[in-house]
């Protein structure tokens, strides 16, 4: 980081001489230290999964839910500064409710992505605010079928078949690519639930010393009436079991280590990280 100390990285809405906005890049760092989140687009819907780090024994299991509902048909999960994510989701809810009030129908997900992107981008324009410290994966089912998007702190968003963000994104991405190579025709949400669980387990490997809890949700045309629902009970149990089984079997097979270009500043982030997550 040659830029540090030059002064161009102290304020939002300031370009450096080579045309970068450092504050937005730093916001990305907050995301990269966050717990892993993924999303998978399927033939009949979308699936979300997130790793919930157990930072203390005193936390109540299954509570402190991270995945959020934006509208009945849209779900969202994010990595980075969790309170920033809540801010974003609150805005998303306003956009979605406002659309419905004006047009009398649920907002289309591409149109929703557009609005969210605009909002996040606005937080990179002014020195009176800071960018969002989150990358958010969101999606669901609208009249056109399933959609999955990921939006970054600079406001850019893309549609994805499989999206991953947070600390374990590199290995999660590799797993997602592998998954879609094996299933070129796509997966059903039921299949994807198990795979999503497994990928979160794989992504957690590099961070093994901390315990974690898996959280899953989905939107499916056949299983959830196209609404965003949390995965609980037996279904969640099944996914967890599947992931654990696969992890035990997979120990000998593929060991391509993918976490190469990740800056390893675990040392520096130790105290800040746990508090802010």
């Amino acid at each position: 980081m040659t830029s540090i100390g030059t002064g161009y990285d102290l304020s939002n809405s300031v370009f450096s001489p080579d045309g970068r906005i450092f504050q937005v890049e730093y916001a990305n760092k907050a995301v990269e230290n966050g717990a892993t989140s993924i999303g998978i687009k399927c033939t009949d819907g979308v699936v979300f999964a997130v790793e919930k780090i157990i930072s203390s024994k005193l936390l109540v299991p299954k509570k402190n839910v991270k995945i959020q509902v934006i509208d009945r048909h849209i779900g969202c999960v994010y990595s980075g500064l969790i309170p920033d994510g809540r801010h974003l989701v609150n805005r998303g809810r306003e956009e979605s409710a406002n659309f419905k009030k004006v047009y009398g129908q649920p907002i289309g997900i591409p149109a929703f992505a557009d609005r969210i992107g605009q909002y996040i981008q606005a937080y990179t324009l002014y020195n009176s605010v800071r960018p969002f410290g989150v990358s958010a994966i969101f999606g669901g089912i609208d009249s056109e079928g399933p959609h999955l998007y990921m939006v970054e702190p600079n406001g850019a968003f893309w549609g994805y078949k499989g999206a991953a963000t947070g600390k374990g994104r590199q290995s999660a991405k590799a797993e997602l690519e592998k998954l879609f190579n094996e299933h070129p025709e796509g997966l059903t949400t039921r299949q994807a639930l198990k795979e999503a669980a497994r990928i979160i387990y794989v992504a957690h490997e590099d961070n093994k010393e901390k315990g974690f809890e898996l959280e899953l949700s989905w939107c499916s045309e056949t299983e959830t009436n196209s609404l965003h629902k949390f995965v609980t009970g037996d279904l969640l149990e099944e996914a967890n079991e599947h992931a654990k089984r696969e992890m035990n079997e997979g120990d000998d097979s593929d060991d391509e280590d993918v976490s190469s270009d990740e800056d390893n500043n675990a040392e520096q982030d130790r105290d800040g990280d746990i508090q802010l997550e």
Partner: protein
Amino acid sequence: MNHDPFAWGRPSDETYGQYNQAIANASNFPKMNTQQPIVTGTSVISIKYNNGTIIAADRLGAYGSLLRFTDVDRLFPVGNNTVVGISGDISDMQHIEKLLEDLETENNYDNSYADDEESLKPSYVFEYLAAVMYQRRSKMNPLWNAIVVAGVENGEPFLRYVNLLGVTYSSPTLATGFGAHMANPLLRRIVDRDSDVEKTDLQTAKNAILECMKVLYYRDARSSRKFSLAIIDKDQGLTLEKDLQVENMTWDFAKDIKGYGTQKV
């Protein structure tokens, strides 16, 4: 001298400051809000029984005396144990329908108990509607409706009424509009006081409601044969039938009514 005729006879700007043009341009009337309903739905009737509540309303949207819309839903389920029945202005009813949808959507936000402990209960829904109705009447801009909220709460039947004046009350039988005059006395033959609720089973209560729908169809000129009926039962949960119609009628008496159909004097 100011030669602009508009300025003649007005307080001079020098003395009184800039003349407020809005006064001269004011409307001849004060601001007017809804003062009568346009398209209307007639009675909603309801009764408590030993294991829950029943609520019914016909499917007509009348434009004055014209039976204009014949397939209007006027019973709205909210959550798993509440049904809201609305009579009065249909456009206002549709606005309330939106409010109820939003209420339900918002209850699902970040609520890990949304399906059970923290689901919407009838009393929450009612209190909200009562607050809205009272606020609107206090703004002199009422929603022109009478509303019955029916459901089951904490294992007990729930029934409560609110109207465009913001007035609320409850009773083991409730009816709005024409039904308040015609159905209530009939329903009270079955359930007159709270203590009668325990003694009344579902079938008795349902028969009473069906009988009332028939009487109302006979005597209420702004009613339709088709109606919806919802049962909220402690054990069976919520069932909503939308395609019922009044059965077993006899119109033999009609020929004796003056002005009805073809008549020889």
